[in-house]
Protein backbone atom coordinates (compact mmCIF):
# COMPACT_ATOMS: atom_id res chain seq x y z
CA UNK A 1 0.00 0.00 0.00
CA UNK A 2 1.34 3.42 -0.90
CA UNK A 3 0.48 6.72 0.67
CA UNK A 4 -0.50 9.37 -1.80
CA UNK A 5 0.39 13.04 -1.35
CA UNK A 6 -2.84 15.05 -1.31
CA UNK A 7 -3.11 16.89 -4.59
CA UNK A 8 -4.75 20.30 -4.59
CA UNK A 9 -5.77 21.31 -8.07
CA UNK A 10 -5.44 24.83 -9.44
CA UNK A 11 -9.21 25.16 -9.56
CA UNK A 12 -9.49 24.13 -5.90
CA UNK A 13 -6.86 26.73 -4.98
CA UNK A 14 -8.76 29.36 -6.97
CA UNK A 15 -12.04 28.51 -5.23
CA UNK A 16 -10.26 28.56 -1.91
CA UNK A 17 -8.72 32.00 -2.60
CA UNK A 18 -12.08 33.35 -3.80
CA UNK A 19 -13.72 32.06 -0.64
CA UNK A 20 -10.98 33.44 1.65
CA UNK A 21 -11.16 36.85 -0.03
CA UNK A 22 -14.95 37.01 0.16
CA UNK A 23 -14.88 35.98 3.82
CA UNK A 24 -12.33 38.67 4.64
CA UNK A 25 -14.38 41.26 2.76
CA UNK A 26 -17.45 40.31 4.80
CA UNK A 27 -15.52 40.65 8.06
CA UNK A 28 -14.13 44.06 7.07
CA UNK A 29 -17.60 45.24 6.06
CA UNK A 30 -18.86 44.70 9.59
CA UNK A 31 -16.02 46.41 11.45
CA UNK A 32 -16.88 49.62 13.36
CA UNK A 33 -14.36 51.53 11.20
CA UNK A 34 -15.97 50.51 7.93
CA UNK A 35 -19.49 51.05 9.25
CA UNK A 36 -18.49 54.59 10.31
CA UNK A 37 -16.88 55.19 6.92
CA UNK A 38 -20.04 54.17 5.01
CA UNK A 39 -22.15 56.31 7.30
CA UNK A 40 -19.89 59.34 6.82
CA UNK A 41 -19.91 58.78 3.06
CA UNK A 42 -23.70 58.65 3.06
CA UNK A 43 -23.96 61.84 5.12
CA UNK A 44 -21.52 63.57 2.77
CA UNK A 45 -23.41 62.48 -0.35
CA UNK A 46 -26.74 63.64 1.06
CA UNK A 47 -25.48 67.04 2.24
CA UNK A 48 -26.93 69.72 -0.10
CA UNK A 49 -23.94 72.09 0.25
CA UNK A 50 -21.46 69.28 -0.45
CA UNK A 51 -23.57 68.19 -3.43
CA UNK A 52 -23.65 71.73 -4.84
CA UNK A 53 -19.89 72.22 -4.44
CA UNK A 54 -19.15 68.77 -5.90
CA UNK A 55 -21.31 69.54 -8.95
CA UNK A 56 -19.42 72.80 -9.49
CA UNK A 57 -16.09 70.98 -9.10
CA UNK A 58 -17.15 68.43 -11.74
CA UNK A 59 -18.19 71.22 -14.07
CA UNK A 60 -14.80 72.97 -13.79
CA UNK A 61 -12.94 69.67 -14.18
CA UNK A 62 -14.90 68.98 -17.37
CA UNK A 63 -14.09 72.45 -18.63
CA UNK A 64 -10.41 71.78 -18.00
CA UNK A 65 -10.59 68.45 -19.80
CA UNK A 66 -11.90 70.12 -22.94
CA UNK A 67 -10.70 73.71 -22.54
CA UNK A 68 -12.99 76.22 -24.20
CA UNK A 69 -12.45 79.27 -22.01
CA UNK A 70 -9.77 80.67 -19.75
CA UNK A 71 -7.97 77.70 -18.15
CA UNK A 72 -6.60 79.71 -15.20
CA UNK A 73 -10.11 80.85 -14.23
CA UNK A 74 -11.21 77.22 -13.92
CA UNK A 75 -8.07 76.33 -11.96
CA UNK A 76 -8.63 79.18 -9.50
CA UNK A 77 -12.31 78.26 -9.10
CA UNK A 78 -11.39 74.60 -8.57
CA UNK A 79 -8.88 75.42 -5.84
CA UNK A 80 -11.45 77.66 -4.09
CA UNK A 81 -14.21 75.05 -4.30
CA UNK A 82 -11.97 72.25 -3.06
CA UNK A 83 -11.00 74.38 -0.06
CA UNK A 84 -14.70 75.10 0.59
CA UNK A 85 -15.55 71.40 0.37
CA UNK A 86 -12.71 70.39 2.71
CA UNK A 87 -13.87 72.99 5.25
CA UNK A 88 -17.33 71.45 5.56
CA UNK A 89 -17.74 69.52 8.85
CA UNK A 90 -19.35 66.62 6.95
CA UNK A 91 -16.28 66.39 4.74
CA UNK A 92 -13.93 66.47 7.72
CA UNK A 93 -15.94 63.67 9.37
CA UNK A 94 -15.70 61.68 6.14
CA UNK A 95 -11.97 62.34 5.89
CA UNK A 96 -11.36 61.05 9.44
CA UNK A 97 -13.47 57.95 8.81
CA UNK A 98 -11.63 57.28 5.55
CA UNK A 99 -8.24 57.65 7.27
CA UNK A 100 -9.28 55.09 9.92
CA UNK A 101 -10.31 52.63 7.20
CA UNK A 102 -7.06 53.18 5.30
CA UNK A 103 -5.04 52.45 8.44
CA UNK A 104 -7.05 49.29 9.13
CA UNK A 105 -6.75 48.10 5.52
CA UNK A 106 -3.00 48.76 5.56
CA UNK A 107 -2.69 46.53 8.65
CA UNK A 108 -4.73 43.81 6.96
CA UNK A 109 -2.59 44.15 3.84
CA UNK A 110 0.58 43.68 5.89
CA UNK A 111 -0.75 40.36 7.20
CA UNK A 112 -1.89 39.13 3.77
CA UNK A 113 1.42 40.15 2.16
CA UNK A 114 3.55 38.51 4.85
CA UNK A 115 1.64 35.24 4.51
CA UNK A 116 1.64 35.39 0.70
CA UNK A 117 5.33 36.24 0.45
CA UNK A 118 4.52 39.04 -2.03
CA UNK A 119 3.05 42.51 -1.36
CA UNK A 120 -0.69 42.12 -1.92
CA UNK A 121 -2.34 45.54 -2.29
CA UNK A 122 0.47 47.10 -4.32
CA UNK A 123 0.14 44.28 -6.86
CA UNK A 124 -3.66 43.99 -6.71
CA UNK A 125 -4.35 47.67 -7.24
CA UNK A 126 -6.12 48.47 -10.46
CA UNK A 127 -3.92 50.62 -12.65
CA UNK A 128 -5.24 53.99 -13.72
CA UNK A 129 -6.49 54.29 -17.26
CA UNK A 130 -5.22 57.84 -17.64
CA UNK A 131 -8.75 59.15 -18.05
CA UNK A 132 -9.10 60.18 -14.45
CA UNK A 133 -11.27 57.19 -13.69
Amino acid at each position, binding site marked *: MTLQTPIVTNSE*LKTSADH*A*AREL*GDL*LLHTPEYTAFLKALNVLYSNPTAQKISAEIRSHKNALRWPAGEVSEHEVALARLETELEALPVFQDYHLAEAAVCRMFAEVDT*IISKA*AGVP*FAANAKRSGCGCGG
Partner: protein
Amino acid sequence: MLTEELQNSACALGETLRASPSVQAYLKAQADCAADPEAADLDNRLLAVYKELLGRQQRGEALQRSEIDAFNALKNQVRQHPLIRERDATLEMVKINFRDSAENLNFPLGEEFAALAVTTIP
Protein backbone atom coordinates in the same frame (compact mmCIF):
# COMPACT_ATOMS: atom_id res chain seq x y z
CA MET B 1 -5.93 46.84 16.64
CA LEU B 2 -7.35 44.10 14.45
CA THR B 3 -9.50 41.39 15.98
CA GLU B 4 -8.09 37.88 16.05
CA GLU B 5 -10.78 36.80 13.59
CA LEU B 6 -9.66 39.47 11.11
CA GLN B 7 -6.00 38.59 11.55
CA ASN B 8 -6.73 34.90 10.97
CA SER B 9 -8.84 35.63 7.93
CA ALA B 10 -6.17 37.88 6.39
CA CYS B 11 -3.53 35.25 7.11
CA ALA B 12 -5.69 32.53 5.53
CA LEU B 13 -6.04 34.58 2.36
CA GLY B 14 -2.29 35.22 2.24
CA GLU B 15 -1.48 31.54 2.72
CA THR B 16 -3.92 30.49 0.02
CA LEU B 17 -2.35 33.00 -2.37
CA ARG B 18 1.12 31.77 -1.48
CA ALA B 19 0.12 28.23 -2.48
CA SER B 20 -1.05 29.38 -5.90
CA PRO B 21 1.07 28.42 -8.93
CA SER B 22 1.64 32.06 -9.93
CA VAL B 23 3.07 33.06 -6.52
CA GLN B 24 5.14 29.89 -6.34
CA ALA B 25 6.57 30.58 -9.80
CA TYR B 26 7.32 34.20 -8.88
CA LEU B 27 9.02 33.31 -5.58
CA LYS B 28 11.19 30.79 -7.41
CA ALA B 29 12.05 33.29 -10.15
CA GLN B 30 12.83 35.93 -7.51
CA ALA B 31 15.13 33.51 -5.66
CA ASP B 32 16.85 32.54 -8.93
CA CYS B 33 17.54 36.23 -9.64
CA ALA B 34 18.88 36.87 -6.17
CA ALA B 35 21.16 33.83 -6.41
CA ASP B 36 22.61 34.84 -9.78
CA PRO B 37 25.47 37.36 -9.31
CA GLU B 38 24.98 38.97 -12.72
CA ALA B 39 21.22 39.41 -12.34
CA ALA B 40 21.58 40.65 -8.76
CA ASP B 41 24.26 43.14 -9.83
CA LEU B 42 22.08 44.47 -12.66
CA ASP B 43 19.12 44.82 -10.29
CA ASN B 44 21.20 46.67 -7.72
CA ARG B 45 22.80 48.97 -10.29
CA LEU B 46 19.44 49.90 -11.78
CA LEU B 47 17.95 50.63 -8.37
CA ALA B 48 20.97 52.72 -7.34
CA VAL B 49 20.90 54.82 -10.55
CA TYR B 50 17.11 55.23 -10.29
CA LYS B 51 17.33 56.44 -6.69
CA GLU B 52 20.15 58.82 -7.50
CA LEU B 53 18.39 60.38 -10.52
CA LEU B 54 15.06 60.58 -8.69
CA GLY B 55 16.69 62.25 -5.68
CA ARG B 56 18.37 64.87 -7.85
CA GLN B 57 15.16 65.50 -9.79
CA GLN B 58 13.21 65.91 -6.54
CA ARG B 59 15.76 68.45 -5.37
CA GLY B 60 14.92 70.48 -8.49
CA GLU B 61 17.97 69.56 -10.54
CA ALA B 62 17.49 69.23 -14.30
CA LEU B 63 18.85 65.92 -15.57
CA GLN B 64 21.05 65.72 -18.64
CA ARG B 65 19.64 63.96 -21.71
CA SER B 66 22.69 61.67 -21.70
CA GLU B 67 21.97 60.58 -18.11
CA ILE B 68 18.37 59.68 -18.99
CA ASP B 69 19.57 57.80 -22.09
CA ALA B 70 22.12 55.90 -20.00
CA PHE B 71 19.43 55.01 -17.47
CA ASN B 72 17.09 53.76 -20.21
CA ALA B 73 19.91 51.71 -21.76
CA LEU B 74 20.63 50.09 -18.38
CA LYS B 75 16.90 49.44 -17.89
CA ASN B 76 16.75 47.66 -21.26
CA GLN B 77 19.84 45.64 -20.42
CA VAL B 78 18.25 44.61 -17.10
CA ARG B 79 14.98 43.64 -18.79
CA GLN B 80 16.80 41.47 -21.31
CA HIS B 81 18.44 39.30 -18.69
CA PRO B 82 16.68 35.91 -18.92
CA LEU B 83 16.27 35.46 -15.15
CA ILE B 84 14.99 39.01 -14.65
CA ARG B 85 12.66 38.63 -17.63
CA GLU B 86 11.30 35.44 -16.08
CA ARG B 87 10.82 37.17 -12.73
CA ASP B 88 9.01 40.11 -14.36
CA ALA B 89 6.80 37.78 -16.39
CA THR B 90 5.84 35.73 -13.33
CA LEU B 91 5.11 38.93 -11.40
CA GLU B 92 2.62 39.90 -14.10
CA MET B 93 0.85 36.58 -13.51
CA VAL B 94 0.83 37.27 -9.77
CA LYS B 95 -0.79 40.65 -10.43
CA ILE B 96 -3.58 39.01 -12.45
CA ASN B 97 -4.10 36.48 -9.64
CA PHE B 98 -4.09 39.18 -6.94
CA ARG B 99 -6.46 41.48 -8.84
CA ASP B 100 -8.84 38.57 -9.22
CA SER B 101 -8.75 37.89 -5.47
CA ALA B 102 -9.09 41.58 -4.73
CA GLU B 103 -12.30 41.67 -6.77
CA ASN B 104 -13.76 39.08 -4.40
CA LEU B 105 -12.56 41.11 -1.45
CA ASN B 106 -14.03 44.32 -2.90
CA PHE B 107 -17.40 42.78 -3.66
CA PRO B 108 -18.88 42.91 -0.12
CA LEU B 109 -17.20 46.25 0.55
CA GLY B 110 -18.29 48.15 -2.54
CA GLU B 111 -14.91 49.92 -2.50
CA GLU B 112 -11.44 49.00 -3.75
CA PHE B 113 -9.56 47.47 -0.82
CA ALA B 114 -6.14 47.76 -2.45
CA ALA B 115 -6.52 51.45 -3.30
CA LEU B 116 -7.52 52.30 0.28
CA ALA B 117 -4.80 50.07 1.76
CA VAL B 118 -2.05 51.93 -0.07
CA THR B 119 -3.50 55.41 0.54
CA THR B 120 -1.70 57.52 3.11
CA ILE B 121 -3.96 60.10 4.67
CA PRO B 122 -2.28 62.64 6.95
